[in-house]
């Protein structure tokens, strides 16, 4: 299982803050997971179309090619705007 989190505008657009799912077959990195989730269609396509989407794996900033493995926590969110 992996945990997937969504924040801020993306969380609102998806209507989901967090979910747990089995690591989908063939998904090995953040980019693969993003494409898999966008493939659900409907609002989920926003995961593919959102510009400047940011990712974290296990609470560290990540890139599309950052590996995702069993037990990981993956987060998708817009560019940060704190401070």
């Amino acid at each position, binding site marked *: 299982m992996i945990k997937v989190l969504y924040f801020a505008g993306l969380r609102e657009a998806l209507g989901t803050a967090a979910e747990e799912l089995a690591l989908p077959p063939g998904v090995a990195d953040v980019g693969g997971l993003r494409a898999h989730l966008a493939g659900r269609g409907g609002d989920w396509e926003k995961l593919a179309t959102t510009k400047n989407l940011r990712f974290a794996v296990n609470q560290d900033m990540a890139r599309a090619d950052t590996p995702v493995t069993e037990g990981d926590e993956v987060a998708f969110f817009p*560019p940060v705007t704190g401070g």
Partner: protein
Amino acid sequence: MSISVQHEDFDLSTEVAALRAGQPGVGAVVAFVGLVRDMNEGSGVSEMALEHYPGMTEKALAAIVHEARQRWDILGSRIIHRVGALQPCDQIVLVAVSSAHRGEAFAACEFIMDYLKTRAPFWKREVTPDGARWVDARETDDSAAARWARPES
């Protein structure tokens, strides 16, 4: 090297006093305070809410402070970032750095703020007369952070 993510407000004097306590070698403190403005991008702002990613926030801030300590000879630092509902004029964030001489404190404080703005998972949502909106990231924040990039990093 204390870091807090909290709903509560903070008092600048109290925080700077704690940062300096027991360190008579501190000759310089630079403190940054970020505040909720009543205007943003041309619209009045009546209220703001700060969302964050619990766990990652603290980890990201600790990593930023760790990098600042490697780059500059600083004696201490204090970061407080508020979350939840805020009003115009409220304090949002404090970054305070102590050092023997001022150059290190200025550089480290600005570095921490520039990295916080681009790497710490906080998101602002503001209420305006046209409704609530998520604040867009500013390109100038990316360029401010990029100034500190090092060839090896």
